[in-house]
């Protein structure tokens, strides 16, 4: 059976094809990217119906086994990655067309005084850029997918880097503002994190004698080394998860990336840090994990609160959403530190909730930017609810998901996270953890505050005079919005779609720890 290997490698192999196609037909190459990613999505969903755990292995000497696995843990991640990138492939068609045209005009007006004239025509420029965009987009999606399906530490690391590189180029080539500098900043930070992660991974492999997840036994690692492994891996992954202190790159990168890429970066990519934390720390080296849980919990709470407060202070819509992502990663980190199966399951679920919710928000922000001719300052917006009803509803559902209001999926994940942390506090009879959990939960109205305030400032109140004639964007944009909004609600009402394979798996892992 060769389902997963196709799901991962078909988009990569076809990336040059998309590029060539793009040079001919321009933005419409997005349809091809959509078809390819849809194919991957279907393959993944097919394997998910096999039940239990599905594993494909290919010999990969001398490193070990090149495996691709769908189980209760990797399925939610893989599904969100593919669902988001498939939807965003369509969304990108009008958005990137517009963005590239804008860049073209910008470069023209700046080079008017210049000496060099570009030999290519406008159409060629647009087509070339479109092709480039979609080829990078597909590699990026496949890189993320490979990361969560991998069954070998080295394989994991390769994919981990593979998702970094295209996203770096996407920001550098298609971003807003000071994009070169920001893409470099993004690259440096995440790369430093990756190195720290690599150090941890190599140490594990060194002592275990293998890099295959299946062959790693923590008992082979000397106790004195374990804590260093825990620190190295946690620090490495926390750069990706944008924990406070390691988060500075995120607001820049996510705000200035082209909006469809923000919608992938923010919910889909950074949350992979959470996946890796569970897969490596909790599953492979659980006793190392247990040494750092309290620190992680506290770090998570601080990240939650700090990110939320920063979101209050923003006027740039995309930057606000980026800080909101920092805050939401705080929830995930907090759940990871709960040291209880319910909390960790909640973190995974929250990846899904934040995935749909924040993608909705970034896509709505993109719709606003597109329709208003590039306005990103919240203070210049207002009263758009009647003009952009579908966008307003989508943004509302997105915000409600991250606030954690039923019937959105965010509620299901957040209750699991917090119930887990309280259970952990009660189980260990730790007053400190009890207080931390209380503080964390008490900080959740903060999210409600900035979310609803943003809704009010954008969609309610007085409509500025220059925005009298705008309307909802085309179906390319609204259909993905409606689809994700529906998914958000469905998963909220029927969470068993996520939990049924996830919870028992996490539970069994914790059975091993205590």
């Amino acid at each position, binding site marked *: 059976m060769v389902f997963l290997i196709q799901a991962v490698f078909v988009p*990569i*192999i076809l*990336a*040059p094809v998309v*590029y060539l196609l793009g040079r001919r037909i321009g933005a419409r190459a997005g349809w091809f990217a959509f078809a390819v990613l849809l194919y991957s999505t279907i393959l993944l969903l097919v394997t998910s119906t096999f039940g239990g755990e599905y594993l494909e292995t*290919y010999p*990969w*000497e001398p490193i070990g086994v090149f495996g691709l696995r769908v189980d209760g843990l990797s399925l939610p991640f893989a599904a969100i990655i593919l669902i988001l990138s498939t939807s965003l492939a369509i969304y990108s068609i009008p958005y990137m067309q517009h963005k590239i045209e804008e860049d073209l005009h910008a470069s023209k007006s700046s080079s008017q005084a210049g000496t060099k004239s570009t030999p290519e025509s406008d159409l060629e420029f647009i087509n070339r850029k479109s*092709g*480039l965009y979609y*080829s*990078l987009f597909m590699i990026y999606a496949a890189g993320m997918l490979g990361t969560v399906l991998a069954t070998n530490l080295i394989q994991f690391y390769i994919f981990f880097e593979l998702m970094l*590189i295209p996203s*770096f*180029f996407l920001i*550098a*080539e298609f971003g807003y503002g000071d994009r*070169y500098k920001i893409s*470099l*900043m993004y690259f*440096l*930070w995440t*790369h*430093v994190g990756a*190195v720290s992660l*690599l150090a941890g991974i190599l140490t594990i492999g060194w002592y275990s004698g293998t890099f295959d997840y299946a062959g790693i036994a923590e008992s082979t690692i000397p106790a004195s080394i374990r804590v260093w492994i825990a620190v190295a891996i946690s620090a490495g992954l926390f750069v990706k998860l944008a924990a406070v202190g390691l988060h*500075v790159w995120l607001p*820049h990168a996510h705000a200035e990336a082209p909006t469809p890429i923000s919608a992938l970066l923010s919910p889909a990519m950074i949350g992979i840090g959470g996946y890796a934390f569970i897969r490596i720390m909790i599953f492979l080296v659980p006793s190392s994990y247990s040494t750092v849980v309290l620190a992680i919990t506290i770090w998570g709470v601080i990240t939650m609160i*700090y990110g939320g*407060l920063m979101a*209050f*202070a923003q006027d740039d819509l995309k930057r606000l959403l980026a800080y909101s992502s920092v805050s939401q990663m705080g929830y995930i980190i907090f759940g990871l530190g709960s040291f209880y199966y*319910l909390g960790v399951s909640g973190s995974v679920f929250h990846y899904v909730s934040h995935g749909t919710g924040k993608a909705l928000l970034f896509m709505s922000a993109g719709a606003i930017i597109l329709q208003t001719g590039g306005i990103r300052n919240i203070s210049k917006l207002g009263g758009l*609810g*009647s003009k952009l009803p579908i966008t307003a509803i989508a943004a509302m559902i997105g915000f409600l998901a991250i*606030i954690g*209001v*039923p019937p959105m999926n965010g509620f299901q994940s957040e*209750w699991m996270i*917090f*119930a887990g942390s*309280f*259970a952990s506090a*009660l189980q260990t009879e730790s007053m400190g953890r009890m207080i931390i*959990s209380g503080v964390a*939960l008490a900080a*959740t*109205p903060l999210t409600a505050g900035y979310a*609803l*305030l943003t*809704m*009010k400032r954008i969609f*309610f*109140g007085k409509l500025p005079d220059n925005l009298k004639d705008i309307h909802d964007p085309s179906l390319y944009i609204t259909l993905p919005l409606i689809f994700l909004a529906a998914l958000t609600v469905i998963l909220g009402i029927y*969470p*068993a779609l996520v*939990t*049924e394979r*996830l*919870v028992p798996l996490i539970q069994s892992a914790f059975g091993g720890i205590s």
Partner: protein
Amino acid sequence: MVELVNASIPWLVFGVPFIGALLIPLVSKAGDQIRNYVAVAITFISAAFALMMIPLALAGETLHNQVPWIPSLGITAGVLADPLSVLMANVVAWISLAIMVYSLGYMKGDPNLTRYWFFMIFFIGSMQLIVLSDNFLQLFFGWEGVGLASYALIGFWNKDKESDYVGTVGHKAWGIPTAFSPSHAGMKAFVMTRVGDVSFLIGIFVLYFFAGTFDFTLLAQEHGWAVDLARSGLLIPVAVLIFGGAIGKSAQFPLQEWLPDAMAGPTSVSALIHAATMVNAGVFLVARIGPLFATAVQAVNMIAPFFETIAWIGVFTAFLAASQAMVAKEVKKVLAYSTVSQIGFMMLALGVAGLSANFLSGFIAGFFHFTSHAIFKAALFMGAGALIHATHTKYMSEMGGLRKEMRFTFIAMTIAAGSLAGIPLLSGFWSKDAILASILDVSSFGLAMPLFALATITAVMTAFYSARMIGMIFFGKKSQHLEEMEKEGKHVHEASRLMWLPYMALAGVTVLLGFTGPFFEGFLDFSFASHLEQAFGMVVIEAPFSINLVALAASLGALAVGGFFGYSFYISRRYDPGKILGSSGFLKSIHTFLENRWYINSIYYIIFVNGTLRVATFLHKRVEIAILNKINSSVTDSTQYFSSISGKFDMYIVDGVVTGIASISLVLSKLLRKIQTGITEQYVFAFSIGIIFLVILMSILLL
């Protein structure tokens, strides 16, 4: 088969509105008129299903139906139709229906009616979901559903025109504006009730850890969780934390401040919030968990502090809000404060239930008062909406002398206000009396006395503000505002029939319930007694209806005192309250204090809203930008600087900065400089080719 049908009825009571709400946007394509009637029809169908459950309550039986929900955690979804939820569901359903019919007239011509109907129906469905849920988690869905609907409906006029503001624009208390735009008021309601929800959630999470279930019936059957909780000293905290949710939703002290500002919504929405949904959710929650905690531990004393908390918060809120209602200027604000106050009474009753030997009397008093309040308050709000429509003002001082022009409204509102004040032979008289009597049942005399005294003082104030409201609106001379309107040729006239019929009907029910009060109480007595016995194994004393003379005297005395002042100031207008107020600096300062809501609102804004924003701005400026961004920027800048130095040398420096690993980084730093030349895609192309090459190589190795 019959059983299956029966079991599906409670599901349909909330299922119909939820599905119906989704249909509204579709139906709206068929025409506005059709959409409006469909909306009312959906409410009616839901109410009809609620009515079909009544036989259960009459027989004192319970229907419990469950389906799997999150199997891996052992969590089920289900409906629990016991006498409490069946009766509650019917009050909610039928009052909602009256309000929906009224909306046909009141909201006529609004351009955003699709949104209006969607959220109204969603609101009703969420409330029914709360009422009929059999576990905390599912209940919380409805709980947040009403929060969401109230957010959307309070902020319904989200264009935030100045005329839609609630409160006096420009007036400030301690530097905090007291007027709020609709969208602000909606947000305030949501965030403030959310604070209560945090407390609620902590409570149920801890409970879940000990009990391993959210299910009400399981919690009632097996009391091991309560023993464990009590042993670790968490029983009272958990119970009080869960009650915190009710404090938020029901606008009890200290989270009462959102409700007065919620008046920014359409009046029909206010009616729904105050009479049938939202604020009553908290009362229902307490009625749900009260017996659970009362019977969970054998030694009653262990749980007494929980019920004391409820009783004290209830009675204090009743007092606080009634004092503010006495000086409110807007008719809807009077009603809003009055709701907060009356809900306080209900809480008080449910609290004293757990403090007396007979749980039943307080429990019934609370539910009875909920029912009578729901009916007369819906009538009052709908009447107020008609008044605002007719007079184009929210201020009572700009009305006056309207009893001829708006005869039906006058009759209905006077009956309803009379019931609120506690005039004998109206429904409110019986229920208030029942509450006062149940306080006297409290075992500890030292506790009963202050509660009773505060409740009586509140009853005095209630009678006063009821009379004041009726007097200012319907008696005396016409205000200047109305005379100006007449000059412009706009005559005040009675509301359309579609509007006055619903509130006249509810006024009629108030009278009817007034005449049959003791019988209704007897019915509640029977129904709840069997419910408490069966579900909780509680020993209850079914007491035949009797009149407690002390309570009766207090209730009538309060009516006489409060009514006298209200009558002579505002109805007969023998004394001028303005003059009396002006003559005394002391009274004046009390008046200002009450008008500024005891400054509680200002304090909250100063600490929580402005405080949060200040901390956020400070951190953003001084930490995020001043420190973290500087570091970030300098790292990036220096890297860029180094990488711009020509030659191979830079690679090694970049490499060093990037912690000196592998070739990928080397290639990249080279690439980065090439970006500017615009040939990146060729590299990417090459890169992709390379990947393909790797893949081919790998598959060769495989085969």
